């Protein structure tokens, strides 16, 4: 069988592809940043918060971690309007991604916090740190350093999962790719190119994460 690879129509739309990739990067980076804040709050609530809050956060984490991302997106975009909350596709996609990554990262950071020995906490108090300072410097920072690899791979996974947001017509890289594919029928070529683009973006995020790691966690480890 003759199968001619024809990349010309794909490269002709390179501006669209770059726009799509930029949309994916923006959505992912925003969701990572907001999701991290959400996760730190969630992890604090689950480990040190009042009982009532622990229950709420556990419920949130379990609901999100035990339902498919696709369904969560559909729920936010198609379901919420009937409750009066109408979001455009991008806000809906961002909200879904934040909620999703927030739940997973909450569990990751909670695990990190629980790995901190009680003695370290007591040492903090012995030095006269207030509870909030103690949580931030003595518990959270070493906890984040411990779970950093797990956290960042969850973030990369989030970026790859964001390919699903095209189902609610958000114009991310996958959406742009399918549009080009359906217009030119060069589907294989398009998916070849966007696969490479996702790969490059993943590597880019990984490199960024290692730079952040070196800058943020420079103090010596006890291991």
């Amino acid at each position, binding site marked *: 069988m003759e199968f001619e690879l024809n990349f010309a129509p794909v490269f002709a739309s390179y501006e669209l592809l770059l726009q799509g990739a930029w949309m994916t990067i923006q959505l992912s980076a925003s969701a990572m940043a907001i999701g991290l804040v959400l996760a730190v709050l969630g992890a604090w609530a689950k480990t040190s918060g009042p009982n009532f809050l622990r229950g709420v956060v556990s419920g949130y984490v379990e609901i999100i971690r035990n339902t498919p991302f696709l369904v969560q997106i559909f729920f936010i975009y198609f379901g919420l309007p009937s409750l009066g909350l109408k979001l455009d596709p991008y806000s809906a996609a961002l909200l879904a991604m934040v909620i999703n990554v927030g739940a997973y990262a909450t569990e990751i950071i909670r695990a990190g916090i629980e790995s901190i020995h009680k003695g370290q906490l007591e040492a903090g108090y012995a030095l006269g740190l207030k509870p909030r300072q103690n949580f931030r410097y003595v518990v959270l920072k070493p906890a984040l350093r411990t779970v950093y690899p797990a956290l960042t791979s969850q973030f990369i996974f989030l970026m790859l999962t964001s390919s699903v947001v095209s189902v609610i017509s958000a114009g991310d890289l996958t959406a742009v790719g399918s549009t080009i594919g359906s217009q030119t*029928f060069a589907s*294989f070529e398009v998916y070849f190119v966007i696969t490479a683009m996702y790969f490059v973006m993943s590597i880019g995020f990984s490199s960024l994460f290692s730079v952040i790691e070196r800058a943020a966690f420079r103090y010596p480890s006890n291991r």
Partner: protein
Amino acid sequence: MMKYFRHTLATLAAIGVMAGTGFSPAQAQTLEKIKDSGQMSIGMLVDFPPYGILNEQNQPDGYDADVAKLLAEDMGAELTLVPVTGPNRIPYLLGGRVDLLVASLGITPDRAKRVDYSEPYAAIVVYLYGQTDIDIPDAEAMQGKTIGVARGSTQDVAVTNLAPEGATIQRFPSDAAAVQALLAGQVQAVGVSGTVIHHIEQRAPDRFDKKFVLREQVQSIAFRPGDDELRARVNEFLGRVKENGKLDEVHQKWLDSPLPDVLYDYDKEIPHQ
């Protein structure tokens, strides 16, 4: 060097496609293959009522399925119906996963570069269909409006071509998702066929109405380029079922209306490679 590289890529791609599909290289002889094996596989949509649906037994059904069954019966072959989607139906055909498509494929010049068409076997009128309280008498009036379409569909092409600057086109993976967005109020209008409208009105009467005709479109059975013998065989079959009323019967069954007149004397040229 470049030539060598291209050759390697083409080989790799061919291996990939063959490994993925179990594709036989005898592409042009689909008719013979059907005759020899006594089996044919036909790709059809299952998310495009009433042309292609999944019935209560979760089997492909609808107008397209009945046409495919008539055709297989006529050719004396055992039929396998393969569910495809709007975006992947042509790759399925070209990749050899199906022998032909009875997948409500409208004739467009772009698609004609990749597939060959039979005489039309169905016709669809596509409307812009939107909320009753919004006035959109013509294409210009789409300005400032949010229009939903199924990505890559004929209505996508029509809306994209007609829409003025300032109209927002939202592309969904299927008609069902676009209609869902309309029902949820996320878009003010959608480009959909008359039959989809028929179903929306059963569910949500009086909320929406037809704004204007986006395009009238005929659908054909699609073949891989070069399958001329199969195409001739299918055209002969279509001529016969149009004449003896069998196609009309199927149309009545699924669309509650007689076969559109345009199908009896279709005089436009069908692009062919």
